């Protein structure tokens, strides 16, 4: 007697792509604004980027209901931290919190593919890349979501991160200027939009620097 499988799934995939690039004194976080289900579009104007702390910005693709729930948990934990320590959480601290929060639901995961970007304690850009259950790593750049397989190889070619196995320890942040990194992000999203049906509509770019956050919006193909 074969095992009966559920014909209802608690998850859905709302598509979308998120990218982050770390620079010497900035961090660029970008995501498209299309939210879809199956072959239909739910929204052309849905932001997947969320500010968690002054120096930490989270971008998540996947199941947006789980993403919203995850953001709520992180927001409340951050508030408690602020009450207890009288300061905002740093990006590496937020990174660990996110990892623990995801692993907490190891056996009924948040269907969220996250990229966390921000500035570390020294003011250098940092990007953390995650899987659905909380395995994370600090990297120089990262991409998650439906278009990640199209984008990652190009970023690898242009921004090749040195292997963490090589000694002495090399800086994984890109030497590119802020304008060049933004140009790279725009090119990469325009290309991913051509070939991935779940990526498109508009591109939201957030640039984090020591003095504040700047947001830019660019049109993408709407088909």
């Amino acid at each position, binding site marked *: 007697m*074969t095992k009966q499988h559920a014909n209802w799934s608690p998850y859905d995939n709302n598509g979308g792509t998120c990218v982050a690039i770390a620079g010497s004194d900035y961090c660029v976080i970008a995501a498209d604004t299309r939210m*879809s289900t*199956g*072959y*239909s*579009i739910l929204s052309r104007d849905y932001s997947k980027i969320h500010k968690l702390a002054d120096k930490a910005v989270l971008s998540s693709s996947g199941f947006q209901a789980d993403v919203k729930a995850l953001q709520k948990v992180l927001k409340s934990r951050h508030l408690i931290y602020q009450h207890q320590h009288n300061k905002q959480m740093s990006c590496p601290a937020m990174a660990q919190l996110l990892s623990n929060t995801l692993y907490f639901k190891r056996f009924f995961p948040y269907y969220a593919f996250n990229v966390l970007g921000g500035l570390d304690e020294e003011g250098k850009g940092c990007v953390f890349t995650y899987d659905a259950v909380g395995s994370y790593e600090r990297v120089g750049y990262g991409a998650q979501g*439906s278009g990640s397989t199209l984008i990652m190889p190009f970023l690898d*070619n*242009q921004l*090749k991160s040195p292997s963490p196995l090589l000694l002495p320890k090399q800086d994984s942040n890109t030497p590119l200027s802020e304008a060049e990194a933004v*140009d*790279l992000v*725009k*090119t990469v*999203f*325009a290309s991913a*939009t*051509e*070939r*991935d*049906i*779940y990526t498109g509509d508009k591109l939201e770019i957030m640039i984090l620097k020591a003095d504040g956050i700047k947001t830019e919006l*660019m*049109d*993408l*193909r*709407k*088909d």
Partner: protein
Amino acid sequence: MSQSAVDVPPKGGFSFDLCKRNDMLTQKGLKAPSFLKTGTTIVGLIFKDGVILGADTRATEGPIVADKNCEKIHYMAPNIYCCGAGTAADTEAVTDMVSSQLRLHRYQTSRDSRIITALTLLKKHLFSYQGHVSAALVLGGVDITGPHLHTIYPHGSTDTLPFATMGSGSLAAMSVFEAKYKEGLTRDEGIKLVAEAICSGIFNDLGSGSNVDICVITKGNNEYLRNYMEPNPRTYVSSKGYSFTKKTEVLLTKITPLLERVEITEVGEAMEE
């Protein structure tokens, strides 16, 4: 020698011997290979002087766009064209096959092909494959009996309609037709409506995209307007461009001779002629 060779039926076609094995494999968790589907929005409508067919140009393989500008309006006869949705290989093969059959029939009968001939040939073929040939078609043309428009479903059923849509974007396109279609449209009104319906599919259905192809068929004349509209230009091209200078890194060069070199000294007599 293998004793388990699969028998091919005497008249060709599909052999379903491996179906049980495939079922067993899928139960064990093996995923079947995916097909190239055309996602697609295809439409047709009858106007005052004939038939207008329209189609988008995106071919998808799952979530990836395999072809950004493919042709979905297939030639059947000088006065008959057919739009195809479903598995790309199936639509191509079935329309090519019936197109050849129609040509041979024209030679034999010395008459222009009729749409109902193409219709019957297609539906008979699709029915005999019980839906396994995944081709959903919008067939249209003008023959001696007038303009005709039909839809053909993968299992072999057909409809005769004044306006029709098929494919994943059919609901988006049909909503436009139902709102704006009326009898006796002029050529320009008809083209505008077909383009609007296809655009609705292109922008609202993720399986359809890129450009609009249109084909206008009237008595004694057809016009294939390839890429009639291109509403999706690339949004950003970097002004400075990107270079790919990193070549493959050579880590080690080592030559290993496969055979030992043997020195041959001239010994013995020369060969006899």
